[in-house]
């Protein structure tokens, strides 16, 4: 038993190291992830000002990634989120591989799928939030499937805790409670004691008897209540904290600090609108290709349910649920984070077998192997055509080393400031957060959360020694508050003399000449 645990732990470490090394190799080939920089930047400013802690809590999305990667400190050679992701996906793939080895009913070819699935690999190396999304979706569907087998409070409670914790990743996970409603409704028919027979027999007996009907609906609504309690109460707690300490219940959504999240890395930049417009136009079915390319295993599980009807129904519900979500919000949701719902559901379903289930036939093994191989290929295609820059970059950097303009720019920023004497910088940290994580010690900056940011924008020479601004070629040029402030000062003919220290395609670094 002990040796099994040691082997389990060692293989976990091994897989995690594998993901980490792959991630490092890709970064050498030009891969980068803004989400990782964003989290590292938030860690940097957590305790910088008096209100930083509260504001970090309110305005860091995804907060769970922030919390998780905080465990890994600030390694210099690689961002902490990359390590966190490698550990999470290392655990997940290790768990699935061990499950597959120890359970004869699970086709061993699925190990190949786990190791080579581009979605899983990307989750392990990306340094973004996909690892958490994938983990969440896998656990969610596994727990639901287990609940349909045991009807136990334990699995309901775990579901509730899972959703409660992962609202820190994305509030929208609450929507998945809707997905549970039909599951609870149908499973309540099977929970009734003393009634046997087919589903229709049970249903007709339960619904035609007053007492049984009352128990049935009580059980159904109570199940929803039990699952929804922790997430809803967690949310309520957060709203109370908002109200008490910030004066408004929805402060985290309404205040200016929320602008942070509008620069979230999963939003495509406006400059790339031509590239992704065919995917998001209201009357185009293009987006379905992206959708279907990651859902093959899930679709297959609808038919390959192994006698567990709940599995088939759940997969169908998952597909319909996500389809309706994406169709409505293509810009925000046609990305791998959301699509991982299908990957998670597919993996959970493929690895779930009831105790009384017989070993699958050879034909079934063959079919699964074909579907898994095809699934890997389609997922690879997804990354090739993805409208998300990061996802695309992942595929490209595997094939060829990439010319990373942004990465170069970050490097230049670091090198420039290393040569300069310490001082204060006026900068829009909602745009230049990657650059700021590389800033040498001794420099301080005025950013969105510092108390004198507004004053610094009015009278820069009093509050700063250096200014960093975007150039018009930068995709977020119009959002750059510092650039806008200088333009306004120009307009008002308030002259601040600036000496250009460095410029590239994206940014300009100036020294403010004191009068």
């Amino acid at each position, binding site marked *: 038993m002990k040796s099994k645990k040691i082997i389990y732990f060692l293989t976990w470490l091994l897989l995690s190291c594998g993901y980490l090394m792959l991630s490092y190799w890709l970064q050498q080939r030009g891969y980068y992830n803004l989400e990782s920089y964003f989290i590292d930047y938030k860690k940097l400013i957590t305790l910088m000002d008096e209100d930083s*802690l*509260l504001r970090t809590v309110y305005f860091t999305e995804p907060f769970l990634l922030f919390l998780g990667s905080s465990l890994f400190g600030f390694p210099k050679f690689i961002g902490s989120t990359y390590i966190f992701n490698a550990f999470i996906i290392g655990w997940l793939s290790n768990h699935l591989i061990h499950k597959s080895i120890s359970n004869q009913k699970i086709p061993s070819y699925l190990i190949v799928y786990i190791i080579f699935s581009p979605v899983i690999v990307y989750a392990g190396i990306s340094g973004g939030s996909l690892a958490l999304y994938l983990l969440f979706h896998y656990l969610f569907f596994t727990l639901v499937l287990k609940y349909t087998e*045991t009807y*136990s*409070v*334990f699995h*309901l*409670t*775990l579901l*509730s*805790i899972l959703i409660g914790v992962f609202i820190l990743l994305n509030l929208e996970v609450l929507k998945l409670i809707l997905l549970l409603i039909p599951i609870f409704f149908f499973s309540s028919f099977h929970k009734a*004691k003393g009634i046997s027979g087919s589903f229709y027999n049970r249903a007709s007996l339960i619904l035609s008897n007053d007492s049984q009907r009352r*128990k049935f609906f*009580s*059980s159904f*609504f*109570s*199940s929803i*209540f*039990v699952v929804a*309690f*922790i997430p809803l*109460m*967690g949310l309520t*707690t957060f709203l*109370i*904290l908002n109200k*008490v*300490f910030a004066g408004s219940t929805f402060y985290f959504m309404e205040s200016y600090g929320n602008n942070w999240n509008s620069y979230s890395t999963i939003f495509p930049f406006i400059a790339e609108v031509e590239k992704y417009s065919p995917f998001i136009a209201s009357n185009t079915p293009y987006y379905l290709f992206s959708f279907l390319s990651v859902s093959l295993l899930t679709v297959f599980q609808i038919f390959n349910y192994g006698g567990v009807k709940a599995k088939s129904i759940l997969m169908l519900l998952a597909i319909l649920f996500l389809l309706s979500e994406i169709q409505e919000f293509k810009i925000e949701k046609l990305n791998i984070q959301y699509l991982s719902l299908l990957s998670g559901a597919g993996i959970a379903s493929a690895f779930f077998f009831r105790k009384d289930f017989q070993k699958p036939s050879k034909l079934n093994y063959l079919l699964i192997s074909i579907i898994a191989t095809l699934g890997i290929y389609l997922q690879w295609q997804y990354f090739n055509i993805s409208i998300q820059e990061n996802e695309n970059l992942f595929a490209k950097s595997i094939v060829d080393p990439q010319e990373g303009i942004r990465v170069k720019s970050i490097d230049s920023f670091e090198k420039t400031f290393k040569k300069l004497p310490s001082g204060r910088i006026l900068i829009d940290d909602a745009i230049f957060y990657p650059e700021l994580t590389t800033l040498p010690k001794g420099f301080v900056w005025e950013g969105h959360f510092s108390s004198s940011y507004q004053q610094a924008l009015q009278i820069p020479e009093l509050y700063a020694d250096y200014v960093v601004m975007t150039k018009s070629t930068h995709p977020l040029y119009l959002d750059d508050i510092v650039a806008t402030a200088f333009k306004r000062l120009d307009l008002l003919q308030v002259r601040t003399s600036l000496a250009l220290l460095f410029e590239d395609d994206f940014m300009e670094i100036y020294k403010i000449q004191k009068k």
Partner: protein
Amino acid sequence: MRLEYYRKSLFQEKAKLNTIQIEEIERLERKLKQSFLKIALNFGYLSRSAWRQTLIDSDIELYQFDYNSLLPIEKSKLIQENLHQFLDALIFPIKQTDDQLHVILCDPSDGININRIEAILGQKINSFEIAEDLDVLKALHVTYGAEYLDKAVFGIYDSDRESCAIETFTKPQLYFLGILFSIGLSFFFFFPIGTAITINIVLNLLLFISISFKFVLTLYGSKFEVAKKINPDELEAIDDKELPFYTILLPVFKESEVIHKLVYNLKNLDYPLEKLDIKLLIESDDEMTYNAVKNMNFPCVFEPVIIPYAQPKTKPKACNYGLYFSKGKYLTIYDAEDIPDNNQLKLVYTLFKKISEEYVVVQCALNYFNKKENILTRLFTLEYSYWFDYMLPGLDNLDVPIPLGGTSNHFRFDKLMELGGWDGFNVTEDADLGLRAYAKSYKVTVLDSTTLEEANNDFFNWIRQRSRWIKGYMQTFLVHMRNPLKLYKKVGLKGFLSFQFFIGGTFFTFLVYPILLTFLLFILFLYTGILDKMVFWNEIEISEIILDNVRLFFPDWLVILSVFNFVVGNLMMIYVNMIAVFRRKAYSLMLFSLINPFYWLMHSVSAYKGLIQLITKPFYWEKTNHGLTKATKGPVQ
């Protein structure tokens, strides 16, 4: 002069027992080696009032004892050595000289037992008088039970002084508390702000850990809810012939109202009656219960045992005394109002057969039959549901010490005797026994069989009961923490930590909860600015001024920490209550878990009462009145 009495005349013609019943009783008489009358009265054949009427109808004048003037006879040593036989024969020798032996007996037709007693005393009975069985039993116990009584009270003290709660605080404990208090005070004097903040953080942290521990335990316990320790096939396979004697102890005190129900509930047990050794433990000064049993007008199924008067008047003392008259291989305790699952004894027997010898106790779940009587009974049901259905199974699965519940704990009798029974000075003797068992490398496990009890439906009665329980937890904590290192060595790190958070954490949270809550509510009240509106005639913002001063000791981040702690802590407790009744399909109770924070405040009141009593009256047994409910058994599944 000895008159002749005949069994046929007394039992068949006057008491109206039929031939089959008499044959049955005679069979049991031979098998159990007890007197005919005792079996007739204690195995459901004849009621005590019917027997009294029979004696009166036979022109017998019943002897009335004056218990205060009873003295042991010259050959008292012989009686003490053979007390069990005298109790079985229902004969009390009241006067004895070299040539005279006068006895009080209950069945004048019982020649066999009269001869047996004559043989023991080596003397012929010259004369006798007749009394009711209960009176004779009482006379025997109060006159000759002193030795057993002494063991019942001081058994633990004599055998394992360190584990006895007779001394509440030991000297080292008092020194430790004194030093801790002095250090705290001096720190507060020199560094008031830092000390206040530190104390606040520590209290918050301990509160959070205690509650989280309970939450995790509940979750862990719920993991095994689907697993059945005994499946129906195993139960079916039991042959009644193989079943051993099973003792049931029923300690009662002023419970005349529930005696009738008790008989009904005991009769429902699925266990051969002849293999049940049911002892109703009545305190000698409890006239109320005594008379209720005496006047019962229907046959009962228990044997009364009268506990001679001694302090402390506690349930463990009564149970310890009862132990010396028990005959079962296994033993359990029920309260008078309990309704155990009818197959519980068989389930426990099967489980004991399956598990290793190191398991000496099986704790069954407790729940309430009057759960919907009022808000208090509802909240009590919520609490018991998570405690017995999830928390104790959680401890069981973690393999850490389990504090036993008040009743429905089933023991291997020999191991219970080896452990020395219960500590008569501990008011939660059951919890203490669970820990002592673990410390002696024995184990306790739980079983998914339920005993329904009567939930307290009266606020003040509830406070009394709860204050005793919490005081008992304090006593148990102090007893086992006399030597923390020794405890750690005995139970290991896991057991030690669970003891701290489960036993210590329980009363600690109740004591600390109202203090922190008051602080927090006061500060939040200031934050809302309501105070300024209340003092409308004053233009100065008073709340801001007070807040500025309070913030010194209670900075914003500490307030956030406290709010988080309270909200999350309360939510966790609400949730565990909720899922416990969900499991029992008592869906209508789920919403009541939302008022659990108020229920906690009631616990706090009890905790402070318990704390005061711990110092002033440590062994005082706060009596819980039973039989207050108007409800009958509900369909708890």
